[in-house]
């Protein structure tokens, strides 16, 4: 395999990028299995999106899905769960397995453990999917009680999360084994970044684990009769906000640690890349009340404190903006790019993997602006639960993350399968159609939200829609139509790629791993050590969540049984 960028050096200071380590066939297959599940989930989940957007302007295609999908809401549950929970989680865990092995230049230390984690996730997925498809879990991906889904839905989601934990343990153990053999050497960034994300995920998912295990699962099994919906919301959003960073950080791993190489550059600052990740570890979690600004039952002071902490989690994203753009500029100027903005043209825009990720990053800038608005305490009153919110997160999870993952898959799937990408041109058009469709879609959704249109609502059927909304509703549908084309193209490129013949090893794409401009070995040790950051994360969590969480648990009122009959 020609994945060797340069021969590994024996020097102690030489960062061991291990560019030379080629995953074994079973390892490639293992990563590929994750991607396979992820992409199938995305294809099914994303088909629902355009149907929703067509519904907004009165084109109701749901009758054609009747045998399976009985309502807009059932479709929306499928859309949210498959896209936001399954596509993301499977891709992320698979990609992290990849960056761990590739970055550290070694196999997983406990491959059986990771396989067990993966199959746990798969079993969980099947258990979740059955009740959704049989219309006995039409509770949307937030499953707020007292909407009561079948117990299998809750148990299935739990297994998906537990499986991802188990895989995470496999990654930590692998890093530990590597450290034993490489004392004094900075851990490679792409491995460390993915593993920090896995650690954050373990802390973050405690909320939803407690919610399901102590309330929803026993309730759906008939062991308890009632729920405490406000406490459930607090548990849910303990996980719900860091969830968005769990999605985002793997894209950041690529933007910091791989994309610069793809554009012929280097990582501008290894130290700051690491600092940003550590900051995400400590401030991603204690911010959940920013999703509950409009909730009764949570005092304003706590909401305000979480608003402040949310502002602090914006800071590492500002660092990311600088470091990533500077890394790109460095590469572009090396390629001969000149001028204040003219250098942008010197980026390899014709490479679909690069184009997809650059376009994803551009959309993310607007996602970031919207996100800061959402987080701004009373500004949330303007947009909470309006169409603005889906408008916002289709720029983040459905673009910054999804389009980046698509871009990654344009080299990763060929690498894993020993093939070449089928029709890079189609892939390029796919990235651009996503970009254009999403701009139209999301702009219209933001405007609708400002005008007061609610989210989670088939607006095509609503009686309260004023004249003024119609043009924007139509734009949502147009954007959705363009996105439909893009999704289909993505599926075609993936399927066709897997159907081409395998090629000689030297024709298979190499793995892009960006070196830092300043040797990673010069990065301070405290930016390569888990302990202080984990302690800081625990302390901050205790201070920022502890009192209110204890209060809500202490005063728990299990008194909401929900309606007598199934409400959907």
């Amino acid at each position, binding site marked *: 395999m020609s994945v060797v960028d340069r021969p590994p050096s024996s020097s102690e*200071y*030489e*960062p061991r990028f291990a560019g030379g380590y080629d995953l074994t066939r079973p390892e490639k297959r293992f990563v590929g299995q994750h991607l396979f599940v992820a992409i199938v989930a995305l294809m099914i989940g994303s088909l629902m999106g355009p149907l929703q957007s067509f519904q907004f302007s009165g084109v109701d295609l749901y009758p054609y899905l009747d045998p399976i999908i009985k309502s807009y809401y059932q479709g929306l549950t499928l859309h949210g769960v498959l896209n936001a929970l399954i596509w993301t989680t499977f891709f992320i865990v698979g990609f992290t397995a990849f960056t761990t092995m590739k970055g550290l230049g070694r196999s997983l230390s406990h491959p059986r453990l990771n396989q067990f984690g993966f199959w746990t996730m798969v079993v969980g997925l099947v258990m979740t999917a059955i009740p959704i498809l049989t219309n006995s879990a039409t509770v949307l991906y937030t499953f707020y009680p007292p909407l009561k889904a079948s117990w299998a839905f809750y148990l299935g989601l739990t297994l998906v999360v537990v499986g991802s934990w188990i895989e995470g343990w496999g990654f930590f153990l692998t890093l530990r084994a590597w450290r034993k053999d490489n004392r004094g050497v900075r851990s490679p960034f792409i491995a460390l970044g993915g593993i920090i994300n896995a650690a954050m995920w373990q802390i973050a998912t405690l909320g939803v684990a407690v919610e399901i295990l102590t309330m929803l699962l026993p309730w759906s099994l008939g062991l308890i009769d009632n729920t405490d919906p406000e406490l459930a919301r607090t548990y849910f959003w303990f996980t719900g906000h860091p969830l968005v960073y769990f999605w985002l950080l793997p894209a950041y791993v690529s933007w910091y640690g791989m994309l610069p190489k793809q554009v012929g550059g*280097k990582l*501008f600052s290894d130290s700051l890349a690491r600092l940003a990740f550590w900051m995400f570890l400590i401030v991603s979690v204690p911010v959940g009340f920013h999703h509950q600004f409009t909730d009764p039952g949570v005092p304003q002071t706590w909401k305000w404190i979480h608003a402040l902490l949310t502002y602090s989690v914006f800071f590492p994203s500002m660092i990311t*903006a*600088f470091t990533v*753009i*500077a890394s790109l*500029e*460095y590469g*572009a*100027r*090396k390629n001969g790019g000149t*001028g*204040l*903005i003219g*250098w*942008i043209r010197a980026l390899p825009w014709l490479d679909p993997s690069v184009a997809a990720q650059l376009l994803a990053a551009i959309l993310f*800038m*607007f996602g*970031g*602006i*919207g996100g*800061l*608005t959402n987080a*701004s305490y*009373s*500004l949330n*009153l*303007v*947009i909470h639960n309006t169409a603005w919110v889906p408008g916002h997160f289709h720029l983040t999870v459905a673009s910054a993350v999804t389009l980046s993952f698509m871009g990654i898959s344009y080299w990763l799937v060929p690498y894993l399968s020993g093939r070449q990408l089928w029709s890079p041109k189609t892939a390029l058009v796919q990235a651009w159609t996503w970009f254009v469709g999403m701009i139209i879609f999301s702009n219209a959704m933001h405007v609708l939200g*400002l005008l007061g249109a609610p989210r989670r609502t088939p607006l095509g059927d609503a009686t309260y829609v004023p004249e003024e909304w119609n043009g924007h509703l139509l734009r949502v549908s147009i954007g959705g139509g363009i996105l439909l084309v893009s999704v289909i193209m993505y599926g075609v490129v993936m399927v066709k790629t897997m159907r081409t013949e395998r090629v000689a090893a030297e024709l298979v794409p190499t793995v892009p791993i960006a*070196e830092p*401009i*300043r*040797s990673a*070995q*010069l990065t301070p040790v405290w930016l390569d050590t888990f302990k202080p950051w984990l302690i800081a994360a625990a302390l901050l969590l205790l201070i920022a969540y502890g009192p209110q969480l204890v209060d809500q648990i202490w005063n728990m009122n299990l008194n909401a049984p929900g309606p007598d009959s199934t409400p959907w």
Partner: protein
Amino acid sequence: MTGSQEPNGDQPVDSRAIQVEPEAEEEHFRPNGTIFILILFVAALILLWLSVYVILLSRGVTV
């Protein structure tokens, strides 16, 4: 924007340290284009954020 100031002798201490590939251009690379894009970004951020803030102010007090 403070970001566009010239560095005043505030050179990174590592200039004489072990370089993986000591190339002169790397030490002199100044990300001017980055600063330019980020200024545009901050301008958009302030503008869009303020426009929602103005909507908030125009929609009345909720004590």
